[in-house]
């Protein structure tokens, strides 16, 4: 079969190369480990390039790549906890270290990353796909291979936790206020 040097083909390869930073950023938001995030992004790109024949619609390239990233991430976690299935993995409480204080000096950024790192994995994935990548709920459901209702409930719990941790005064302070 003759190789087609089309503009469409060149653009797709360029898009794949350009997607590395986005994949890395999301992987970092999931694992908060720059080395692991880079490995996951790299593996996603290599898997993607080797499976391009499975991509049926070029307009859905990013969703397709993020779905591969999700599989790489699950494979990584499975390597550590082989007895967990996908659903249990999603509920896995975080055992991530907080952000590196030497690297991250901005207090707000550090607080938010710590709060996100504390979310169960499934919630962390949903909230970052929606807030960082602007995917629709339906797209997130497809990327993570879960029902859309699960996307909405995980998002709800994630935002409730973030709100409590980041936007509401600490319990002691609330108590003081109420007895004034």
């Amino acid at each position, binding site marked *: 079969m003759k*190789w087609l040097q089309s503009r469409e083909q060149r653009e797709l390869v360029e898009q794949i190369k350009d997607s590395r930073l986005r994949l890395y*950023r999301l992987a970092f*938001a999931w694992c908060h480990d*720059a080395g692991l*995030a880079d490995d996951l992004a790299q593996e996603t*790109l290599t898997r993607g390039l080797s499976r391009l024949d499975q991509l049926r619609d070029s307009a859905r390239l990013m969703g397709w790549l993020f779905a591969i990233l999700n599989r790489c991430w699950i494979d990584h976690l499975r390597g550590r906890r082989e007895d967990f299935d996908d659903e249990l993995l999603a509920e896995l409480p975080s055992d991530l270290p907080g952000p590196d204080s030497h690297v991250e000096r901005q207090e707000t950024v550090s607080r938010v990353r710590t709060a996100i790192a504390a979310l169960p994995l499934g919630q962390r994935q949903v909230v970052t796909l929606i807030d960082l990548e602007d995917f629709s709920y339906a797209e997130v459901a497809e990327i993570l291979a879960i029902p859309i209702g699960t996307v909405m409930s995980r998002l709800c719990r994630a935002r409730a936790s973030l709100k409590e941790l980041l*936007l509401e005064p600490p319990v002691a302070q609330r108590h003081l206020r109420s007895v004034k």
Partner: protein
Amino acid sequence: MNQPRDFSDERLNAFVDNQLGVQECDEILAAIASDADLGQRLCALRSAKELVRHAYGNVPPARHRLDRRLPVWCGALAASITLVVGVLAGWLGHQATATAEAPGAATSWAGRVFAAEPGRILIHLDSSRSEQMDAALDLAEAYLAKASDARIEIIANHRGLELLRVDTTPYAARIAGLKAQHARVGFVACGQTIARLRGVGVDVELVPETTVARTAIEHVAERVQQGWTYLKI
């Protein structure tokens, strides 16, 4: 006086994320005017969303791990090597010159665009395990034995670079022999991996048959773009 409507958190999140239809948005917007609590709930959800965006606006630069554990997906290595060898053996056995699509078969968009030519193979190695290094060289040799005019490249990054480093490779003579016998075989090292190693004081000297690409992933992308068959070991 109308009672304030009780909107669920799911619905308010969907409003904040622009996932509702026009009518549902209108209902919430109309309710905000007379319901201060609703306004506050929405404001908190919007703030949480903005905080997440803000937190990852600038992520730290990628740090490659020198102590990189073998990724989990290497567990499937034996199967993937078998598959690759099987596919190649099939191709070599039949001496196929073109890929015919089965009539009526669902052909994907990318499958048509990225139909690779046989005869140009890029083998990607990112591990220093001896069986993987062996597999990469075995593949190249087997392919060249059947199609001596083929172009073959082995691209090495991460720990796979050890195949091409003078002080770590167990295969310097084999690489030299392959190159001497087949001018169209190439060995490519990832410039990013080299820079990372040198950055931590490792003296990197490559076997003389090696060329250096800026990054492995860019080289892979370029070769795929040019129609090469890409194989990950």
